[in-house]
């Protein structure tokens, strides 16, 4: 048995340790509860010197940050080597476009660290021809400069992450596909280690939703970006040794996109059951809480409108928005204005960062109005506190709510959400039974200790130390 600790390099994009949220909390919890593992962080950030939102545990022994859009010193390669690499990339792209089988491994094996071939790729005749041909095929009627900048934007980031030198580790653990997945894949191939991929949501689906909403990207560019992210996810699946999703529906989607079924597995989220098992005490009034950041993805505005509907019916209701308000100040102001315009300021409270346990112990309903979620831990936390849940039907929520349509609504359906809340209000005896069942389900499937032990076993197996 080796005395050396297993080292796991966690590769993240736009989350831990700079952004708070479900994924970041999950990572922090995993690191804290596996002290026998040395963790190294390899993060991808949009800007330099972002403040840390989490105190890094002691077993984080290294942290390397890749800043996109920052000029990097390019490694000097021999002309022949550069040409060979770029031709290999051109060939790879051609196969990608034609849908042929296309191992990226051979390219990555000859792709050195700290080499960023953006300029070299444009200078190369074959690569430029590929770019202009693709433009003619996909975008013949739009200005070439639009296409070029879109290509540049995507590929500059790609080259940055592929060329970034990763810390040495036994296992590379990417917490999404996308650029983090690509960086982890590059590190795995270069260092000849293993790659573990855990997807909380489906990266390419999330990006697709964002792309479709934004006004900055239009027409053919939407398809271009969407296709690119889908292809990146597929490449990550092809090169991952294990692919974890939080629930079965996502696992099926991974398989549908090309993930090899034998490599996929479901490891659901877990929570600290003793910690969240607070004694529920009925308080005067009817208390409905949403635990989450005040950001558009949580759709607090629908929460506010739902609150208005319920308050009109149940005047003693009080609504709590429990979570940080500083992540999107503009959106927070909009929400406050909405509360004011609906004249529910005395019944609707923004608590800011708070100890959620203090709220679980008296909430009558936990409401979730998110437009996008994976497997929200807040639902499991509420179950531990014997709080019933009403939610939009996103991610794995339906499974967590036992597919009970009485408590599920489509995104932005404030009316249905309100009627679900009213149902809970009107059926207290039935809700006691349901919350007890929910709590049992949490104990059976979503214990955090199970999560930690599963990942520890997985790390040991992937590092070739199963006997430990």
């Amino acid at each position: 048995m080796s005395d050396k600790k297993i080292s796991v390099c966690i590769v993240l994009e736009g989350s831990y340790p700079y952004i708070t949220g479900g994924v970041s909390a999950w990572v922090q919890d995993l690191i804290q509860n596996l002290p026998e593992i040395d963790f190294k962080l390899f993060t991808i950030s949009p800007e330099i010197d972002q403040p840390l939102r989490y105190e890094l545990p002691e077993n984080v022994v290294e942290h390397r940050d890749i800043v996109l859009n920052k000029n990097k010193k390019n490694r000097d390669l021999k002309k022949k080597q550069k040409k060979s690499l770029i031709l290999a990339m051109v060939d790879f792209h051609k196969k990608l476009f034609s849908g042929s089988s296309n191992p990226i491994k051979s390219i990555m094996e000859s792709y050195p660290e700290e080499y960023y071939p953006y300029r070299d790729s444009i200078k190369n005749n074959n690569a430029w021809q590929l770019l202009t041909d693709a433009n003619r095929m996909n975008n013949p009627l739009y200005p070439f400069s639009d296409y070029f900048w879109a290509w540049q934007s995507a590929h500059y980031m790609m080259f940055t992450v592929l060329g970034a030198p990763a810390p040495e580790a036994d296992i590379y653990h990417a917490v999404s596909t996308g650029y983090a997945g690509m960086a982890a894949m590059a590190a795995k191939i270069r260092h000849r280690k293993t790659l573990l991929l855990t997807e909380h949501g489906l990266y390419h689906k999330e990006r697709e939703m964002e792309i479709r909403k934004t006004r900055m990207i239009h027409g053919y560019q939407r398809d271009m970006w969407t296709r690119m992210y889908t292809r990146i996810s597929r490449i990550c699946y092809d090169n991952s040794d294990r692919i974890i999703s939080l629930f079965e529906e996502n696992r099926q989607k991974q398989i549908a996109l090309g993930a090899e079924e034998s490599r996929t597995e479901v490891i659901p989220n877990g929570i600290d059951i003793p910690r969240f098992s607070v004694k529920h005490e009925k308080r005067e009034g009817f208390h409905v809480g949403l635990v989450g950041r005040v950001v558009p993805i949580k759709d607090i505005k629908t929460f506010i409108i739902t609150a208005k509907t319920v308050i009109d019916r149940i005047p003693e209701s009080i609504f709590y928005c429990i979570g940080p308000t500083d992540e999107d100040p503009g959106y927070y102001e909009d929400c406050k204005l909405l509360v004011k315009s609906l004249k529910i300021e005395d019944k609707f409270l923004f608590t800011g960062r708070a100890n959620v346990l203090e709220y679980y112990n008296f909430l009558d309903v936990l409401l979730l109005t998110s437009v996008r979620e994976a497997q929200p831990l807040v639902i499991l936390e509420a179950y531990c506190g014997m709080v019933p849940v009403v939610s939009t039907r996103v991610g794995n929520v339906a499974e967590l709510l036992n597919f009970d349509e009485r408590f599920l609504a489509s995104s932005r359906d404030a009316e249905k959400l309100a009627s679900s809340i009213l149902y809970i209000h009107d059926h207290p005896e039935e809700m006691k039974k349901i919350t007890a069942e929910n709590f049992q389900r949490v104990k059976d499937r979503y214990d955090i200790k199970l999560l930690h032990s599963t990942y520890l076993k997985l790390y040991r197996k992937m590092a070739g130390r199963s006997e430990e």
Partner: protein
Amino acid sequence: MAGIGFELKKVVNRGGIFSISQVVFSGAIIVAGPWMISILNITFAQQFLNDFLAGNSEYLIETMVYSYALSLVIFGGFHYPFTRMLSDMIYEKKEKEAFVQTIFFSIIIGGVSFILCRFLLSFLEIPLERPGLYRFSAALFFSAVNVLWIMMLFVSVLKWFYKICLSYAAGAAATQIFIKVLPAETGMEWVILAFALGQIIIILLLLLFSQNEYPGGKERSLKPLFKYLKKYRIMFFIGLFYNAGLWIDKMIFWIFRGTSNGGTILPLYSAYDTTVYLANLAVIPGLIYFVTATETNFYILLKKFLFSLRSSIYRDITIKKYRLMNRAKKDLIDQSLIQAVLMIILILLSPVIAEQLIRSTTPLILNLSISAGFFYLIFLTCLNFHFYLEAYRDAAWVCFIFFGINLSTAIVTVAFPAIPPGAGYILACGISAVYSYYSLKKNIRFLDRKIFINAGAVD
């Protein structure tokens, strides 16, 4: 010079013999003004002062020739980044600042060149009655020539071609007056001083015109100048190799075949020198066509191409790019045809010219020089277009090849006397013309790509 070209184009478009004559005259001044005036001065000195100065004009000729040659070879490299700075400042409507930088640069170059020349002359024995005066006058002349190049860069960018003509005419007249006023008949030192003062008159007139037009520039530091010299240091090498390439064969012949006539200091090789100077004047018609047609057409089509990059589909960008390339080729051919016709005429007349005008040469050397001029014009045109495309590295290579071939063939010519002088120069001009043409084609072909790379400029 595209700006001046557009002005001349407008005049041509008026039609009529008078307009064409005006363009020919103005064009000649613009394209070859300083060089032409210098040649005329030297020719005048050689032909007419000889009797006046009892056969001692060689000192003047040497002083002038070496001054022009060394001013370009030593300091010519600086002219290019300096011109770039002027163009940028004038584009940004900062003419006053440009003028201030011109003054600063002139002071530096004038001072350095005076000190350098005076220092070098101190090692030479001057067999004249007043060697100290000679050294001073020669250094002053050298310094004035250098400052005049710089002033010309400024006024050329501003398109003041009538003011340039006026200043040069005044300078020439002033030279003659100074010769009369100073005791020139007592020694060449005074004649050289008169020429130096004539150059200074030109400088003062150009300064006066500039000061009237752009008084009160606030920039008081040399930072802009040094910034450009650093940023565009590749342009220094273009200037260095180009000017060295033009003069290196002559210098080699001065050293190995030159003679110091009449006990003078610095050798010249008059069999070749004068031939080349006058043969270079023969490219003026081609240069006028270049300024009025070739360059202006290139500029217009280049601008259209650059605009297309912003908002056109790729097919249109490609069309405009190849339109630029094809038009450049067509204009180059037309320009070369005009020059070829003149070249043939001069070659046919070369025995007469050699016998009557340039007595020290032979028809063969003259023919070689005239033919070299044909290729030189192509080389110069293609080199000029490299600047439009900001292909400075390739331009530097083109000039280096020009310099390298001219240097090596000059050495070979000296080693093998059967090879006539000028053979190496025509080879240098010919190969440089071909290389620069293909370099230009390559740069145009990759122009869209290069612009997108540099615009992205993230690494």
